[in-house]
């Protein structure tokens, strides 16, 4: 791994100059989650929750509503990730925190674990062998990401968090909302706090909305990219990886 070695000079009490190297900085691999390491996305997780409402009728209504909203979600995501967040997370309004947490493990076992791309395990493994810290930077919810992060042996993760009042979701996200440039800002702060050299860090994402996240590291990689990110990756000569 390439290290940034800035020689620091100091003079001792005898007037002799000493040169010393700063402590070696670490590096990390930052991963987006949905579409990058797993086949599913936020809508799948919500659909699981909709399908498991209390009562069949309520489940049917919520599931149908989710289904008909998919084109709108796609259009909103294509246009702007923030708009998508505003439209999407409001669907959680009224959901009980306890219930969401109870369903999290089941969601992982039945939906998320089978959706992990075969190459994801190996990518993380090779990355860990290189001594990189494994960090998930995702717009998914903390409730759903926990078991997955544990399963993939991720060291740290940052997610979006729903706002709960009296144990019920308000449909809003707590700041900072992880999307687009916020992910890059968070990574910069994280790197500074953890003494990581971003030039030595790796980032992996499938989506054009994560361009800022890919741009702040020395080793960006487009993973299973959409057509827009593929074009951008080719323009910037970034590696393009297919984990599917």
């Amino acid at each position: 791994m390439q290290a940034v070695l800035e020689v620091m000079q100091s003079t001792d009490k005898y007037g002799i100059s000493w040169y010393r190297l700063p402590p070696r900085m670490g590096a990390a691999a930052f991963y987006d989650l949905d579409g990058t390491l797993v086949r599913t996305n936020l809508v799948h997780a919500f659909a699981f929750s909709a399908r498991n409402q209390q009562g069949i009728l309520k489940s049917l209504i919520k599931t149908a509503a989710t289904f008909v909203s998919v084109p709108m979600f796609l259009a909103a995501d294509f246009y702007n990730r923030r708009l998508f967040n505003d439209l999407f997370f409001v669907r959680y309004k009224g959901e009980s925190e306890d219930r969401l947490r109870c369903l999290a493990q089941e969601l992982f076992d039945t939906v998320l674990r089978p959706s992990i791309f075969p190459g994801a395990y190996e990518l993380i493994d090779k990355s860990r062998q290189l001594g990189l810290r494994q960090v998930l930077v995702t717009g998914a919810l903390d409730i759903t990401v926990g078991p997955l992060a544990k399963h993939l042996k991720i060291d740290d993760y940052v997610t979006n968090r729903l706002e709960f009042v009296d144990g019920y979701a308000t449909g809003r996200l707590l700041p900072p909302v992880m999307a687009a440039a916020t992910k890059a800002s968070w990574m910069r702060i994280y790197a500074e706090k953890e003494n990581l050299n971003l030039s030595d860090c790796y980032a992996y994402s499938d989506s054009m909305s994560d361009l800022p996240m890919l741009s702040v590291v020395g080793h960006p990689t487009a993973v299973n990219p959409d057509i827009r990110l593929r074009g951008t990756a080719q323009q910037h000569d970034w590696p393009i990886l297919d984990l599917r």
Partner: protein
Amino acid sequence: MRERAPKTILRGPVARNKEDDQVVYIDGDSAPRILFSGEDLLLEDLPIGTRVLYPKPPIEGLANPGAAIRYALNHPLDAEPLYAQLAPGMRVTIAVDDISLPLPPMTTPDIRQTIIEILLELLDANGVDDVHIVIANSLHRRLTAAEMKRMVGAKIYDAFYPDRYYNHDAEDPDGIVHLGKTEHNEPVNINRRCVESDLVIYVNINLVPMDGGHKSVAVGLCDYEALRPHHEPQTIRDSDSYMDPKRSMLNTKVERQGAIVDRHMNVFHIETALNNRIYAGATAFLCKNEDEFTEVDRLKFEAMRWTLSKLPRAAKRKLFHSIPAQYQMVAVYAGKTEPVHERILKHCWDQYGLHVRGQADVLICPVPFISPYNVNSILNPLLVQVMGLGYFHNFYRGKPLLKKGGVMILTHPCYDEFDHEHHPSYIEFFNRLLPETRDAMKLRHKYEEEFAKNPSYIEMYRRGNAYHGAHPFFMWYWGENGRQHIGKVIVAGAENAHVPRILGWDRADSLPEAIAMAKSAVGPSPDITMMHHPPIVMADME
């Protein structure tokens, strides 16, 4: 300057004593010469006195390749006949050279298909049904399914792909076995399926003398750690040249590893030599001496040049890559690796080697559209480098064709184009590392491991069709003895300034300008030699 006898100007080529007939000197009446410049053809008048090395005429191919292969299998060198080594229930792996050989890919049926069909018949007749076919691609890119199908034919492909016909994976954590170390501490790590087979049958195509021998198994089926001891700058510096196995440190180290392979594995080697019939029919004129062109040849050339001038580069590339070579097999031997290889090398030199007297001050090397590392892809700047300083410089036996400190002129547009799918690590190497240093030692020690262990590059090698992350380093080392020997490289016709600059070369708009620049470096009347590639010509230096 090389001493030459007084020259009588005659019409047509003038052959010199002690040099082969294919060594031709340009005189006042000589026709302009055709030079490849990537995907374009140049027509240039060379200075009077320029020596042009033409390929030898193709050696007649074997009339019945199938019979020759069967004879080789039944009369192997230093080994039992293949049928006598087979028994029902045994595990057999057939390993084959990858798409880097021959160049361009030959017309179907590929000679590998012919050999494997015979092998499978023989294995089946002897009750051997646990058979795998492994492509010995080492750290080269995986072949695509279409390329694999073309190599062995639809019948074998349909029967074996993908479970029993696949690419070697040097990064498979469970797929490599450590066989031991040589007395010089060089590790030998080989494909697990091959190691655990009762018999490995290696099917080789020898295009240049660097190929084949112990390199087939010890390099073709190894991993990164086992390549490191010889794919490094000092080994290349110590190889004079790496096309001459007896004076190649690369070959010495590979042979040491091969000895370990032979200690642990039962390898039955089949090697073949091809003639140099790269073009035939409508494109045969590309291999001819221009002084012997007929009117039809000239028309064909003009038509081709006109067509190329109207096509975008990608279409020209596609066009050239779609013309299969018309190679024919001239020899096949089977048995133990060393004696088989020795005989095949002789056939290689018989076809490629030209007896040449005297070194040149200036060497002109036209760079074509293809190298071993860009079949169906782009000849990117690093590969232009490997063709010039690597292959063309090393196409000699005895001493280099170019004097120490001489000038090499390459003709190529030097376009800044890379294939993102095949050469992702090359892009970073070229744009990030070379602007910092061109010192091969420094590159190896500072950066090679970082690239080799880059998780993205590993996954692209394993799951996509990318060359391994360490491969661009090997390409740079491949030019290392050329870099140490050559005083200056001028690339004629480079369409930009930055690619030659990053590679450490000078650029010229045209070949005459490049020759004028060369004269300012080596003197006003230099001895100029041009290698008329393709097909391959090697200098057997006096």
